[in-house]
């Protein structure tokens, strides 16, 4: 008996079998906890004894907490610095690499990308070594040049510490942003550049008026990665400074982590998580608004 294509493809049982595993795991591990976070943020809970419903008290407490504001500031610094460094340098490098008579393109690209595939632990440990005030690479370089200048890179109570960590993180993922921008730039059809050349534009003008605007979609993605990644930074902070000295390098995620897993304040931690997701959504929408509001097609 021959079945029509349509009836085979409308086989509900088959569709269920194919789609169910992914949907089940996804719903259980991602969607359900998402709602749990919301729910838990309204409770006071230490993880063991039954929780107490306190409605918005966690949030009130949070907005009175000085550490929150420090975390927000650090997150902003991290995000802005990382975005500027990564997008700025990646653009410079990618556009330079478009040049025809370039030497060593392949090895440059490979080396730029290597830090991306390293473990965050290795990268942080390496930079901790370099930042070490007594024996580290940076201060050693000053010593070798006979300068008496030393920097205690990660011990500042001010913003120097978070900047130091941001540089580490930016260094690690620069290669990734570069690869994205370079791929985007390479996919721009040649005739745009030819047309600009015919019109007598210099390469700088071409890049400012043609290449960069055409890369808007790519910038949207890289900007979101860099900025939201900076706001939500955790790994590098947790390894390099543990939020210290004191609370000088706290970010929102680290604040949340400490509340839940160090102080057993699960409800409070979830309230911070809610703020975190709202922040991410807000920034993503903002970036979407600012960049590439029209679909770019060639």
């Amino acid at each position, binding site marked *: 008996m021959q079945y029509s294509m349509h009836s085979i493809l409308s086989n509900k049982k088959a569709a269920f079998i194919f789609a169910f595993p992914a949907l089940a795991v996804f719903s259980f591990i991602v969607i359900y906890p998402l709602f749990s976070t919301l729910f838990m943020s309204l409770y006071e809970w230490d993880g063991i004894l039954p929780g107490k419903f306190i409605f918005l008290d966690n949030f009130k407490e949070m907005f009175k907490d000085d550490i929150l504001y420090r975390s927000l500031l650090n997150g902003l610094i991290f995000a802005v610095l990382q975005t500027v460094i990564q997008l700025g340098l990646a653009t410079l490098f990618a556009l330079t690499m478009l040049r025809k008579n370039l030497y060593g393109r392949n090895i440059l690209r490979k080396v730029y990308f290597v830090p991306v595939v390293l473990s965050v632990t290795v990268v942080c440990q390496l930079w901790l070594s370099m930042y070490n005030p007594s024996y580290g690479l940076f201060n050693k370089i000053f010593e070798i040049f006979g300068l008496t200048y030393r920097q205690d890179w990660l011990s500042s109570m001010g913003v120097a510490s978070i900047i130091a960590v941001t540089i580490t993180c930016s260094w690690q993922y620069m290669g990734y942003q570069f690869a994205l921008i370079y791929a985007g730039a390479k996919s721009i059809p040649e005739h745009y550049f030819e047309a600009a050349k015919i019109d007598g534009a210099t390469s700088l003008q071409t890049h400012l008026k043609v290449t960069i605007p055409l890369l808007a979609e790519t910038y949207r993605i890289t900007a979101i990665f860099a900025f939201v990644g900076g706001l939500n930074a955790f790994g590098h902070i947790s390894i390099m400074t543990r939020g210290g000295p004191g609370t000088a390098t706290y970010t929102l995620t680290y604040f949340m982590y400490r509340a839940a897993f160090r102080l057993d304040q699960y409800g409070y931690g979830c309230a911070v998580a809610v703020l975190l*997701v709202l922040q991410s959504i807000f920034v993503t929408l903002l970036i979407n608004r600012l960049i590439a509001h029209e679909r770019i097609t060639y």
Partner: protein
Amino acid sequence: MKIIEKLKSVLLQSFLWIYFVVSLYPLMYMLFFSLKNNEEIFFTNPLGLPNPIRFGNYLNAVTSFDILKFFRNSTIVAIFSIIFIVIFSLMFSYAVARMTWRFRETAKKYMLLGLFIPMQVIMIPLAVLVKQLGFANSHLALIIPYIAFNLSFSSLIFYAFLRTIPIEMEESAFLDGATIYRSFLQIIVPLIKPALATVTIFSFLNVWNEYTMALILVRNQELKTLPIGLLSFAGQFSTEWGPMGAAMILASIPMIIVYLIMGEQIENALTIGGAVKG
């Protein structure tokens, strides 16, 4: 004008090479100090090549620190995660790309949501959930979340790829009386190899180097994955940089080898991701 052009070119290219050094030298520095002893690193020869070359640091790292154990854990977690990421997301994408069913469009958008949910937001309830279900501190504690986190992106890749396969491929199979399962296994699966490579590479990178969830969900020293295991080592050897450097290098060698062999495909995988996500 030619001279100015030449100068500009040299200047711009020098930026590229300066960053080449910035990218590479820290790794060289780490390689070098993994082969030195403290005195050399701290005082006599911080920047240059090791002299003498102390392979003993590596022996030290492997014997006093069970790096193989962490390798093993990372490998187990990675293999099982990737297997199921691929199977589940491919099946799901097939259902969404080819079959007709009532909630198809909704399911597609639902799965796409996963791309926009930052993992930090579900960290706390997930930790609680894993503990309540009783598989905290086990390989499963990482495998199941890793599968879940990578389904959205993998499904997207497979979906985009499946759409480029003409329906005629399966039509002939159906006309010959094949069931949808056979058509899937014998026709579709062999055809999706390029997408399979992308998904595998991307998932592997996400899982092997994953830090945050591994930190929270597995406290048992015997079961820690590489990124977390290395942390404990760094604490233990904070005053002896040589062995610590050796451990870091050992931990990085697999990824670097994989990258040198498959670098091109890795970059393709990640940048396709960027393009498709946009």
